[in-house]
Protein backbone atom coordinates (compact mmCIF):
# COMPACT_ATOMS: atom_id res chain seq x y z
CA UNK A 1 0.00 0.00 0.00
CA UNK A 2 2.72 2.41 0.93
CA UNK A 3 5.15 1.35 -1.71
CA UNK A 4 3.66 0.99 -5.09
CA UNK A 5 0.30 2.66 -5.43
CA UNK A 6 0.75 6.17 -6.83
CA UNK A 7 -1.86 8.72 -5.83
CA UNK A 8 -4.47 9.97 -8.25
CA UNK A 9 -2.64 13.30 -8.39
CA UNK A 10 0.63 11.68 -9.40
CA UNK A 11 -1.01 9.63 -12.11
CA UNK A 12 -2.71 12.70 -13.57
CA UNK A 13 0.63 14.52 -13.67
CA UNK A 14 2.30 11.55 -15.33
CA UNK A 15 -0.50 11.30 -17.84
CA UNK A 16 -0.02 14.96 -18.77
CA UNK A 17 3.72 14.56 -19.21
CA UNK A 18 3.29 11.42 -21.29
CA UNK A 19 0.77 13.19 -23.54
CA UNK A 20 3.27 15.96 -24.16
CA UNK A 21 6.14 13.59 -24.88
CA UNK A 22 4.00 11.38 -27.09
CA UNK A 23 2.51 14.14 -29.22
CA UNK A 24 5.83 15.91 -29.74
CA UNK A 25 7.57 12.64 -30.56
CA UNK A 26 4.89 11.82 -33.13
CA UNK A 27 5.22 15.23 -34.80
CA UNK A 28 9.01 15.06 -34.97
CA UNK A 29 8.97 11.47 -36.17
CA UNK A 30 6.68 12.36 -39.05
CA UNK A 31 8.96 15.26 -39.95
CA UNK A 32 11.98 12.99 -39.93
CA UNK A 33 10.27 10.14 -41.76
CA UNK A 34 8.94 12.27 -44.61
CA UNK A 35 12.14 14.11 -45.24
CA UNK A 36 14.08 10.86 -44.98
CA UNK A 37 12.03 9.54 -47.89
CA UNK A 38 13.15 12.55 -49.88
CA UNK A 39 16.82 12.29 -49.01
CA UNK A 40 16.78 8.58 -49.77
CA UNK A 41 15.60 9.28 -53.27
CA UNK A 42 17.73 12.29 -54.12
CA UNK A 43 20.67 12.04 -51.81
CA UNK A 44 22.34 14.71 -49.79
CA UNK A 45 23.75 16.47 -52.87
CA UNK A 46 20.42 18.24 -53.47
CA UNK A 47 21.64 20.65 -50.82
CA UNK A 48 24.02 22.25 -53.26
CA UNK A 49 22.14 21.93 -56.55
CA UNK A 50 20.75 25.23 -57.71
CA UNK A 51 17.65 24.37 -59.70
CA UNK A 52 14.22 24.02 -58.12
CA UNK A 53 11.48 22.95 -60.50
CA UNK A 54 9.14 20.67 -58.56
CA UNK A 55 7.17 19.67 -61.66
CA UNK A 56 10.28 18.38 -63.37
CA UNK A 57 11.56 16.72 -60.22
CA UNK A 58 14.51 19.05 -59.88
CA UNK A 59 15.01 19.81 -56.23
CA UNK A 60 18.02 22.00 -55.48
CA UNK A 61 18.14 23.70 -52.14
CA UNK A 62 20.99 26.11 -52.75
CA UNK A 63 18.97 29.20 -53.82
CA UNK A 64 16.78 29.07 -50.74
CA UNK A 65 19.70 28.40 -48.42
CA UNK A 66 21.67 31.28 -49.94
CA UNK A 67 18.62 33.54 -49.69
CA UNK A 68 18.10 32.67 -46.02
CA UNK A 69 21.76 33.32 -45.28
CA UNK A 70 21.74 36.67 -47.09
CA UNK A 71 18.56 37.92 -45.44
CA UNK A 72 19.89 36.91 -42.04
CA UNK A 73 23.26 38.60 -42.64
CA UNK A 74 21.66 41.87 -43.67
CA UNK A 75 19.36 41.74 -40.66
CA UNK A 76 22.24 41.07 -38.27
CA UNK A 77 24.50 43.75 -39.74
CA UNK A 78 21.78 46.32 -39.10
CA UNK A 79 20.28 45.01 -35.89
CA UNK A 80 23.41 44.24 -33.87
CA UNK A 81 24.93 47.76 -33.80
CA UNK A 82 21.52 49.38 -33.37
CA UNK A 83 20.37 47.02 -30.67
CA UNK A 84 23.66 47.15 -28.77
CA UNK A 85 23.77 50.94 -28.93
CA UNK A 86 20.18 51.16 -27.74
CA UNK A 87 20.94 48.79 -24.87
CA UNK A 88 24.00 50.81 -23.81
CA UNK A 89 22.14 54.09 -24.09
CA UNK A 90 19.17 52.85 -22.12
CA UNK A 91 21.13 51.17 -19.35
CA UNK A 92 24.12 53.51 -19.00
CA UNK A 93 23.20 56.98 -20.19
CA UNK A 94 19.54 57.84 -19.57
CA UNK A 95 17.67 57.90 -16.28
CA UNK A 96 15.77 54.90 -15.00
CA UNK A 97 12.36 56.32 -15.92
CA UNK A 98 13.43 56.61 -19.53
CA UNK A 99 14.93 53.17 -19.30
CA UNK A 100 11.58 51.69 -18.29
CA UNK A 101 9.90 53.44 -21.21
CA UNK A 102 12.49 52.23 -23.70
CA UNK A 103 12.10 48.69 -22.40
CA UNK A 104 8.35 48.89 -22.69
CA UNK A 105 8.54 50.19 -26.24
CA UNK A 106 10.92 47.37 -27.17
CA UNK A 107 8.48 44.86 -25.73
CA UNK A 108 5.73 46.42 -27.81
CA UNK A 109 7.94 46.08 -30.88
CA UNK A 110 8.54 42.44 -30.01
CA UNK A 111 4.81 41.91 -29.64
CA UNK A 112 3.82 43.10 -33.11
CA UNK A 113 2.70 39.98 -35.01
CA UNK A 114 4.89 38.98 -37.93
CA UNK A 115 2.09 39.26 -40.47
CA UNK A 116 1.68 42.92 -39.52
CA UNK A 117 5.37 43.42 -40.20
CA UNK A 118 4.71 41.80 -43.55
CA UNK A 119 1.96 44.32 -44.22
CA UNK A 120 4.29 47.20 -43.34
CA UNK A 121 6.99 45.72 -45.55
CA UNK A 122 4.67 45.20 -48.46
CA UNK A 123 2.99 48.60 -48.43
CA UNK A 124 5.65 50.90 -46.97
CA UNK A 125 9.06 49.37 -47.53
CA UNK A 126 8.63 47.96 -51.02
CA UNK A 127 7.30 51.17 -52.65
CA UNK A 128 10.07 53.12 -50.95
CA UNK A 129 12.77 50.76 -52.17
CA UNK A 130 11.21 50.69 -55.59
CA UNK A 131 11.30 54.45 -56.02
CA UNK A 132 14.61 55.07 -54.25
CA UNK A 133 16.65 52.32 -55.86
CA UNK A 134 14.82 52.15 -59.15
CA UNK A 135 13.82 48.52 -58.84
CA UNK A 136 11.18 46.67 -60.78
CA UNK A 137 8.92 45.82 -57.84
CA UNK A 138 11.03 46.23 -54.76
CA UNK A 139 10.71 42.55 -53.86
CA UNK A 140 14.25 41.74 -52.83
CA UNK A 141 16.56 40.16 -50.30
CA UNK A 142 17.35 43.65 -49.06
CA UNK A 143 13.70 44.22 -48.15
CA UNK A 144 13.56 40.87 -46.37
CA UNK A 145 16.74 41.72 -44.47
CA UNK A 146 15.41 45.12 -43.41
CA UNK A 147 12.13 43.70 -42.14
CA UNK A 148 13.96 40.88 -40.36
CA UNK A 149 16.29 43.38 -38.70
CA UNK A 150 13.26 45.16 -37.27
CA UNK A 151 11.93 41.87 -35.95
CA UNK A 152 15.12 40.66 -34.25
CA UNK A 153 16.04 44.07 -32.85
CA UNK A 154 14.02 43.64 -29.61
CA UNK A 155 15.58 40.24 -28.86
CA UNK A 156 19.12 41.59 -29.21
CA UNK A 157 18.39 44.81 -27.36
CA UNK A 158 16.52 43.27 -24.42
CA UNK A 159 19.09 40.50 -23.86
CA UNK A 160 21.99 42.96 -24.13
CA UNK A 161 20.35 45.30 -21.66
CA UNK A 162 19.78 42.48 -19.19
CA UNK A 163 23.42 41.50 -19.55
CA UNK A 164 24.64 45.07 -18.98
CA UNK A 165 22.44 45.47 -15.93
CA UNK A 166 23.83 42.24 -14.61
CA UNK A 167 27.38 43.59 -14.36
CA UNK A 168 28.18 43.78 -10.67
CA UNK A 169 28.21 47.27 -9.19
CA UNK A 170 31.57 46.54 -7.49
CA UNK A 171 33.09 46.28 -10.94
CA UNK A 172 31.71 49.67 -11.95
CA UNK A 173 32.88 51.25 -8.72
CA UNK A 174 36.32 49.77 -9.06
CA UNK A 175 36.56 51.08 -12.61
CA UNK A 176 35.58 54.55 -11.48
CA UNK A 177 38.07 54.45 -8.59
CA UNK A 178 40.82 53.58 -11.03
CA UNK A 179 39.98 56.78 -12.87
CA UNK A 180 38.88 55.16 -16.10
CA UNK A 181 36.86 57.50 -18.24
CA UNK A 182 33.49 56.56 -19.65
CA UNK A 183 34.80 55.05 -22.89
CA UNK A 184 37.33 52.93 -21.09
CA UNK A 185 34.70 51.74 -18.62
CA UNK A 186 32.50 50.73 -21.52
CA UNK A 187 35.12 48.90 -23.56
CA UNK A 188 37.24 47.41 -20.76
CA UNK A 189 34.64 46.58 -18.12
CA UNK A 190 31.05 46.59 -19.25
CA UNK A 191 31.18 44.98 -22.68
CA UNK A 192 33.61 42.17 -21.75
CA UNK A 193 31.61 41.39 -18.62
CA UNK A 194 28.30 41.40 -20.43
CA UNK A 195 29.59 39.70 -23.57
CA UNK A 196 28.27 36.21 -22.85
CA UNK A 197 24.75 37.53 -22.35
CA UNK A 198 24.97 39.69 -25.45
CA UNK A 199 26.24 36.76 -27.49
CA UNK A 200 23.44 34.48 -26.42
CA UNK A 201 20.97 37.24 -27.31
CA UNK A 202 22.45 37.41 -30.79
CA UNK A 203 22.28 33.63 -31.18
CA UNK A 204 18.64 33.62 -30.08
CA UNK A 205 17.95 36.36 -32.59
CA UNK A 206 19.56 34.26 -35.33
CA UNK A 207 17.30 31.37 -34.39
CA UNK A 208 14.25 33.59 -34.49
CA UNK A 209 15.27 35.19 -37.78
CA UNK A 210 15.77 31.82 -39.41
CA UNK A 211 12.26 30.70 -38.65
CA UNK A 212 10.41 33.91 -39.44
CA UNK A 213 7.93 33.21 -42.19
CA UNK A 214 5.09 35.59 -42.92
CA UNK A 215 6.94 38.89 -43.15
CA UNK A 216 9.78 37.46 -45.22
CA UNK A 217 7.39 35.59 -47.46
CA UNK A 218 5.48 38.76 -48.32
CA UNK A 219 8.50 40.85 -49.27
CA UNK A 220 11.10 38.45 -50.64
CA UNK A 221 9.44 37.80 -53.97
CA UNK A 222 9.66 33.99 -53.97
CA UNK A 223 11.74 33.54 -57.08
CA UNK A 224 13.78 30.34 -57.05
CA UNK A 225 17.02 31.49 -58.54
CA UNK A 226 20.50 32.11 -57.26
CA UNK A 227 21.34 35.80 -56.82
CA UNK A 228 23.24 36.78 -59.96
CA UNK A 229 26.09 37.64 -59.17
CA UNK A 230 26.08 36.15 -55.73
CA UNK A 231 26.15 39.51 -53.92
CA UNK A 232 23.15 40.90 -55.76
CA UNK A 233 20.64 41.53 -53.01
CA UNK A 234 18.31 43.75 -55.01
CA UNK A 235 16.53 40.99 -56.88
CA UNK A 236 13.65 38.74 -55.85
CA UNK A 237 14.88 35.57 -54.20
CA UNK A 238 13.66 32.77 -51.99
CA UNK A 239 14.27 31.71 -48.43
CA UNK A 240 13.60 28.31 -46.88
CA UNK A 241 10.63 29.58 -44.88
CA UNK A 242 9.07 31.49 -47.74
CA UNK A 243 9.37 28.43 -49.94
CA UNK A 244 7.52 26.31 -47.42
CA UNK A 245 4.90 28.99 -46.95
CA UNK A 246 4.31 29.55 -50.65
CA UNK A 247 4.29 25.94 -51.79
CA UNK A 248 2.74 24.12 -48.87
CA UNK A 249 -0.72 24.89 -50.18
CA UNK A 250 -0.14 23.59 -53.67
CA UNK A 251 1.96 20.47 -53.00
CA UNK A 252 -0.13 17.31 -53.08
CA UNK A 253 0.01 15.32 -49.87
CA UNK A 254 2.37 12.36 -50.15
CA UNK A 255 4.08 13.61 -53.30
CA UNK A 256 7.82 14.11 -53.69
CA UNK A 257 7.26 17.86 -53.70
CA UNK A 258 5.69 17.61 -50.27
CA UNK A 259 8.60 15.53 -48.99
CA UNK A 260 10.99 18.12 -50.39
CA UNK A 261 9.20 20.81 -48.39
CA UNK A 262 9.44 18.61 -45.32
CA UNK A 263 13.17 18.35 -45.97
CA UNK A 264 13.33 22.16 -46.02
CA UNK A 265 11.54 22.14 -42.68
CA UNK A 266 13.95 19.57 -41.27
CA UNK A 267 17.02 21.58 -42.31
CA UNK A 268 15.47 24.71 -40.86
CA UNK A 269 14.61 22.98 -37.60
CA UNK A 270 18.08 21.47 -37.20
CA UNK A 271 19.89 24.77 -37.81
CA UNK A 272 17.49 26.78 -35.62
CA UNK A 273 17.72 24.27 -32.77
CA UNK A 274 21.51 24.34 -33.04
CA UNK A 275 21.53 28.11 -32.63
CA UNK A 276 19.05 28.24 -29.79
CA UNK A 277 20.81 25.44 -27.88
CA UNK A 278 24.16 27.15 -28.25
CA UNK A 279 22.54 30.36 -26.98
CA UNK A 280 21.39 28.42 -23.94
CA UNK A 281 24.79 26.87 -23.40
CA UNK A 282 26.62 30.18 -23.57
CA UNK A 283 24.25 31.95 -21.23
CA UNK A 284 26.04 32.81 -17.99
CA UNK A 285 25.00 30.44 -15.22
CA UNK A 286 23.54 32.63 -12.55
Amino acid at each position, binding site marked *: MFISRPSLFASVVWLGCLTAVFSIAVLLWFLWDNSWLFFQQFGIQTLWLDEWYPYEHLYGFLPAIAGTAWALWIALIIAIP*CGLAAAIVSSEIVSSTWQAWIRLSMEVLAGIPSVVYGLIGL*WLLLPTLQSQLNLLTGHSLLAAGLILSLMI*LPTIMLMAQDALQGVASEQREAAKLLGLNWNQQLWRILLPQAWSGIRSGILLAVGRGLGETMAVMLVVGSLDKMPEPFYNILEPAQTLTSRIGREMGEAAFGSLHFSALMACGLILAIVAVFFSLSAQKMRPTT
Partner: protein
Amino acid sequence: MKIILIILAIPALLLPAACVLYIFYQALPALNLSLILGSDIAVVGVNSIGQSILPQITGSLLMMGLACFFALPIALSIALFHAFWAKKRQKKLLMALLQMLQGIPPIVYGLCGLIVLVHTLQWGISLAAGAVILAIIILPLLSNSLIHAFARIPREQTDAALSLGLSKFRVLVRIWLPASWSNILTGLLLSMARALSETAPILFTATVFSGITWPDSIFSPVTSLQTHIFYLAQEGSNIQAIHTAWASAATLLLLVLCFSLAAWYLRRYNKT
Protein backbone atom coordinates in the same frame (compact mmCIF):
# COMPACT_ATOMS: atom_id res chain seq x y z
CA MET B 1 31.68 57.96 -28.20
CA LYS B 2 28.43 58.76 -26.42
CA ILE B 3 27.30 60.78 -29.42
CA ILE B 4 28.00 57.91 -31.82
CA LEU B 5 26.12 55.51 -29.57
CA ILE B 6 23.12 57.80 -29.31
CA ILE B 7 23.04 58.31 -33.08
CA LEU B 8 23.21 54.56 -33.61
CA ALA B 9 20.48 54.01 -31.08
CA ILE B 10 18.06 56.57 -32.47
CA PRO B 11 16.41 54.22 -34.98
CA ALA B 12 15.93 51.60 -32.29
CA LEU B 13 14.41 54.15 -29.94
CA LEU B 14 12.07 55.73 -32.46
CA LEU B 15 10.98 52.74 -34.52
CA PRO B 16 8.56 51.13 -32.05
CA ALA B 17 6.45 54.25 -31.69
CA ALA B 18 6.75 54.95 -35.42
CA CYS B 19 5.55 51.45 -36.33
CA VAL B 20 2.54 51.52 -34.04
CA LEU B 21 1.58 55.04 -35.09
CA TYR B 22 1.96 54.19 -38.77
CA ILE B 23 -0.30 51.16 -38.43
CA PHE B 24 -3.02 53.20 -36.75
CA TYR B 25 -2.59 56.05 -39.21
CA GLN B 26 -3.13 53.69 -42.12
CA ALA B 27 -6.01 51.96 -40.38
CA LEU B 28 -7.84 55.18 -39.61
CA PRO B 29 -9.98 55.35 -42.81
CA ALA B 30 -11.45 51.91 -42.21
CA LEU B 31 -11.42 51.90 -38.44
CA ASN B 32 -15.00 52.56 -37.47
CA LEU B 33 -17.86 50.77 -35.84
CA SER B 34 -19.08 49.10 -39.00
CA LEU B 35 -15.89 47.08 -38.87
CA ILE B 36 -17.29 45.31 -35.86
CA LEU B 37 -21.01 45.72 -36.38
CA GLY B 38 -21.05 45.55 -40.17
CA SER B 39 -24.42 44.80 -41.63
CA ASP B 40 -23.64 41.92 -43.92
CA ILE B 41 -21.56 39.31 -42.26
CA ALA B 42 -23.13 36.34 -43.96
CA VAL B 43 -20.57 36.11 -46.73
CA VAL B 44 -17.03 37.04 -45.97
CA GLY B 45 -14.79 37.05 -48.95
CA VAL B 46 -13.27 39.06 -51.71
CA ASN B 47 -16.66 40.19 -52.92
CA SER B 48 -17.67 41.71 -49.67
CA ILE B 49 -14.43 43.25 -48.53
CA GLY B 50 -15.09 46.12 -46.24
CA GLN B 51 -17.61 44.20 -44.22
CA SER B 52 -17.37 43.25 -40.63
CA ILE B 53 -14.31 41.45 -39.35
CA LEU B 54 -16.13 40.12 -36.31
CA PRO B 55 -15.99 36.49 -37.53
CA GLN B 56 -12.22 36.81 -37.93
CA ILE B 57 -11.80 38.23 -34.44
CA THR B 58 -13.96 35.45 -33.01
CA GLY B 59 -12.02 32.83 -34.93
CA SER B 60 -8.67 34.10 -33.67
CA LEU B 61 -9.83 34.33 -30.08
CA LEU B 62 -11.50 30.93 -30.26
CA MET B 63 -8.34 29.29 -31.55
CA MET B 64 -6.25 31.06 -28.92
CA GLY B 65 -8.61 30.01 -26.14
CA LEU B 66 -8.70 26.39 -27.25
CA ALA B 67 -4.91 26.32 -27.59
CA CYS B 68 -4.51 27.56 -24.02
CA PHE B 69 -7.16 25.11 -22.86
CA PHE B 70 -5.12 22.24 -24.35
CA ALA B 71 -1.73 23.53 -23.32
CA LEU B 72 -2.38 24.62 -19.74
CA PRO B 73 -3.00 21.23 -18.07
CA ILE B 74 -0.06 19.67 -19.90
CA ALA B 75 2.27 22.55 -19.06
CA LEU B 76 1.07 22.38 -15.46
CA SER B 77 1.88 18.68 -15.23
CA ILE B 78 5.32 19.27 -16.75
CA ALA B 79 5.98 22.00 -14.20
CA LEU B 80 4.76 19.79 -11.35
CA PHE B 81 6.91 16.92 -12.54
CA HIS B 82 9.85 19.32 -12.56
CA ALA B 83 9.06 20.54 -9.06
CA PHE B 84 8.16 17.31 -7.28
CA TRP B 85 9.65 14.30 -8.99
CA ALA B 86 12.53 15.20 -11.28
CA LYS B 87 16.09 14.54 -10.19
CA LYS B 88 18.79 17.06 -10.88
CA ARG B 89 19.88 15.54 -14.18
CA GLN B 90 16.32 15.08 -15.32
CA LYS B 91 15.65 18.75 -14.58
CA LYS B 92 18.59 19.76 -16.74
CA LEU B 93 17.45 17.47 -19.54
CA LEU B 94 13.91 18.80 -19.32
CA MET B 95 15.05 22.41 -19.55
CA ALA B 96 17.27 21.64 -22.55
CA LEU B 97 14.37 19.84 -24.21
CA LEU B 98 12.05 22.79 -23.68
CA GLN B 99 14.70 25.11 -25.07
CA MET B 100 15.02 22.88 -28.12
CA LEU B 101 11.27 22.87 -28.70
CA GLN B 102 11.20 26.63 -28.39
CA GLY B 103 13.93 26.85 -31.00
CA ILE B 104 12.03 24.96 -33.68
CA PRO B 105 10.41 27.50 -36.04
CA PRO B 106 6.59 27.60 -35.84
CA ILE B 107 6.21 26.86 -39.53
CA VAL B 108 7.86 23.48 -38.99
CA TYR B 109 5.19 22.65 -36.41
CA GLY B 110 2.68 23.77 -39.01
CA LEU B 111 4.13 21.34 -41.54
CA CYS B 112 4.09 18.46 -39.05
CA GLY B 113 0.54 19.33 -38.05
CA LEU B 114 -0.51 19.36 -41.68
CA ILE B 115 0.72 15.79 -42.09
CA VAL B 116 -0.30 14.30 -38.78
CA LEU B 117 -3.53 16.07 -37.88
CA VAL B 118 -4.97 17.21 -41.18
CA HIS B 119 -4.03 14.26 -43.39
CA THR B 120 -3.18 11.23 -41.27
CA LEU B 121 -5.84 11.69 -38.60
CA GLN B 122 -8.21 13.10 -41.24
CA TRP B 123 -9.35 16.06 -39.20
CA GLY B 124 -9.28 18.15 -42.34
CA ILE B 125 -8.58 21.87 -42.28
CA SER B 126 -10.13 22.55 -38.93
CA LEU B 127 -10.27 24.62 -35.80
CA ALA B 128 -9.11 21.62 -33.77
CA ALA B 129 -5.97 21.12 -35.87
CA GLY B 130 -5.03 24.79 -35.56
CA ALA B 131 -5.67 24.81 -31.83
CA VAL B 132 -3.54 21.70 -31.23
CA ILE B 133 -0.67 23.10 -33.28
CA LEU B 134 -0.82 26.43 -31.46
CA ALA B 135 -0.97 24.53 -28.16
CA ILE B 136 2.24 22.70 -29.02
CA ILE B 137 3.89 25.96 -30.07
CA ILE B 138 3.08 27.71 -26.78
CA LEU B 139 3.75 24.64 -24.64
CA PRO B 140 7.50 25.32 -24.07
CA LEU B 141 6.87 28.98 -23.24
CA LEU B 142 4.06 28.17 -20.84
CA SER B 143 5.91 25.31 -19.11
CA ASN B 144 8.99 27.48 -18.71
CA SER B 145 7.08 30.25 -17.02
CA LEU B 146 5.19 27.83 -14.77
CA ILE B 147 8.45 26.15 -13.77
CA HIS B 148 9.97 29.52 -12.91
CA ALA B 149 6.83 30.57 -11.03
CA PHE B 150 6.99 27.45 -8.85
CA ALA B 151 10.75 27.76 -8.39
CA ARG B 152 10.31 31.22 -6.88
CA ILE B 153 8.25 29.95 -3.94
CA PRO B 154 10.48 29.72 -0.87
CA ARG B 155 11.68 26.18 -0.28
CA GLU B 156 10.85 26.44 3.46
CA GLN B 157 7.14 26.92 2.84
CA THR B 158 6.92 23.74 0.80
CA ASP B 159 9.00 21.78 3.29
CA ALA B 160 6.91 23.00 6.20
CA ALA B 161 3.71 22.04 4.43
CA LEU B 162 5.02 18.61 3.47
CA SER B 163 6.25 17.94 7.01
CA LEU B 164 2.82 18.85 8.33
CA GLY B 165 1.62 15.86 6.36
CA LEU B 166 -0.09 17.62 3.48
CA SER B 167 -0.25 15.65 0.28
CA LYS B 168 1.38 17.03 -2.83
CA PHE B 169 -1.99 17.94 -4.26
CA ARG B 170 -2.83 19.91 -1.10
CA VAL B 171 0.54 21.68 -1.28
CA LEU B 172 -0.25 22.70 -4.83
CA VAL B 173 -3.75 23.96 -4.08
CA ARG B 174 -3.18 25.51 -0.66
CA ILE B 175 0.38 26.87 -0.88
CA TRP B 176 1.61 27.13 -4.44
CA LEU B 177 -1.37 28.45 -6.32
CA PRO B 178 -2.12 31.25 -3.80
CA ALA B 179 1.55 32.21 -3.67
CA SER B 180 2.24 32.28 -7.38
CA TRP B 181 -1.03 32.95 -9.15
CA SER B 182 0.17 36.26 -10.53
CA ASN B 183 3.34 34.73 -12.00
CA ILE B 184 1.26 31.94 -13.52
CA LEU B 185 -1.15 34.48 -14.97
CA THR B 186 1.74 36.45 -16.45
CA GLY B 187 3.00 33.35 -18.22
CA LEU B 188 -0.47 32.53 -19.45
CA LEU B 189 -1.02 36.04 -20.81
CA LEU B 190 2.30 35.99 -22.66
CA SER B 191 1.44 32.62 -24.19
CA MET B 192 -1.95 33.95 -25.24
CA ALA B 193 -0.29 36.90 -26.97
CA ARG B 194 2.06 34.47 -28.71
CA ALA B 195 -0.78 32.21 -29.83
CA LEU B 196 -2.66 35.20 -31.15
CA SER B 197 0.23 36.46 -33.24
CA GLU B 198 1.32 33.21 -34.91
CA THR B 199 0.22 33.08 -38.53
CA ALA B 200 2.31 30.67 -40.55
CA PRO B 201 1.39 27.42 -38.78
CA ILE B 202 -2.38 27.94 -39.07
CA LEU B 203 -2.33 29.20 -42.64
CA PHE B 204 -2.79 25.76 -44.19
CA THR B 205 -4.09 23.79 -41.26
CA ALA B 206 -6.98 25.73 -39.80
CA THR B 207 -8.13 28.71 -41.78
CA VAL B 208 -9.82 29.57 -45.03
CA PHE B 209 -10.24 32.99 -46.55
CA SER B 210 -13.86 33.01 -47.57
CA GLY B 211 -17.08 31.10 -47.42
CA ILE B 212 -17.13 30.73 -43.68
CA THR B 213 -18.43 33.02 -41.01
CA TRP B 214 -18.89 30.97 -37.89
CA PRO B 215 -17.41 27.50 -37.45
CA ASP B 216 -20.15 24.88 -36.98
CA SER B 217 -18.08 22.47 -34.96
CA ILE B 218 -14.53 22.13 -33.83
CA PHE B 219 -13.76 20.09 -36.94
CA SER B 220 -14.77 22.79 -39.38
CA PRO B 221 -12.48 25.45 -40.84
CA VAL B 222 -12.46 28.95 -39.39
CA THR B 223 -11.37 32.38 -40.49
CA SER B 224 -8.81 34.22 -38.43
CA LEU B 225 -7.58 37.76 -38.17
CA GLN B 226 -3.95 36.86 -38.89
CA THR B 227 -4.59 35.00 -42.11
CA HIS B 228 -7.22 37.55 -43.15
CA ILE B 229 -4.50 40.21 -43.08
CA PHE B 230 -2.24 37.97 -45.12
CA TYR B 231 -4.79 37.37 -47.85
CA LEU B 232 -6.00 40.97 -47.99
CA ALA B 233 -2.45 42.33 -48.14
CA GLN B 234 -1.99 40.66 -51.51
CA GLU B 235 -5.13 42.14 -53.04
CA GLY B 236 -2.96 44.81 -54.60
CA SER B 237 -5.48 46.47 -56.88
CA ASN B 238 -8.34 46.77 -54.43
CA ILE B 239 -7.86 49.86 -52.29
CA GLN B 240 -10.75 48.93 -50.00
CA ALA B 241 -9.07 45.59 -49.27
CA ILE B 242 -5.88 47.31 -48.21
CA HIS B 243 -7.80 49.59 -45.86
CA THR B 244 -9.50 46.60 -44.31
CA ALA B 245 -6.12 44.87 -44.03
CA TRP B 246 -4.70 47.80 -42.09
CA ALA B 247 -7.76 47.96 -39.90
CA SER B 248 -7.46 44.24 -39.19
CA ALA B 249 -3.79 44.73 -38.41
CA ALA B 250 -4.62 47.49 -35.95
CA THR B 251 -7.27 45.30 -34.32
CA LEU B 252 -4.89 42.36 -34.05
CA LEU B 253 -2.19 44.61 -32.63
CA LEU B 254 -4.61 45.97 -30.05
CA LEU B 255 -5.65 42.47 -28.99
CA VAL B 256 -2.04 41.29 -28.70
CA LEU B 257 -1.04 44.42 -26.82
CA CYS B 258 -3.93 43.94 -24.39
CA PHE B 259 -2.47 40.60 -23.37
CA SER B 260 1.20 41.54 -23.38
CA LEU B 261 0.71 44.85 -21.57
CA ALA B 262 -1.43 43.11 -18.95
CA ALA B 263 1.47 40.68 -18.49
CA TRP B 264 3.90 43.58 -18.27
CA TYR B 265 1.76 45.29 -15.64
CA LEU B 266 1.45 42.09 -13.62
CA ARG B 267 5.21 41.61 -13.69
CA ARG B 268 5.75 45.08 -12.30
CA TYR B 269 3.07 44.43 -9.71
CA ASN B 270 4.92 41.26 -8.69
CA LYS B 271 8.19 43.07 -8.23
CA THR B 272 6.89 45.66 -5.82
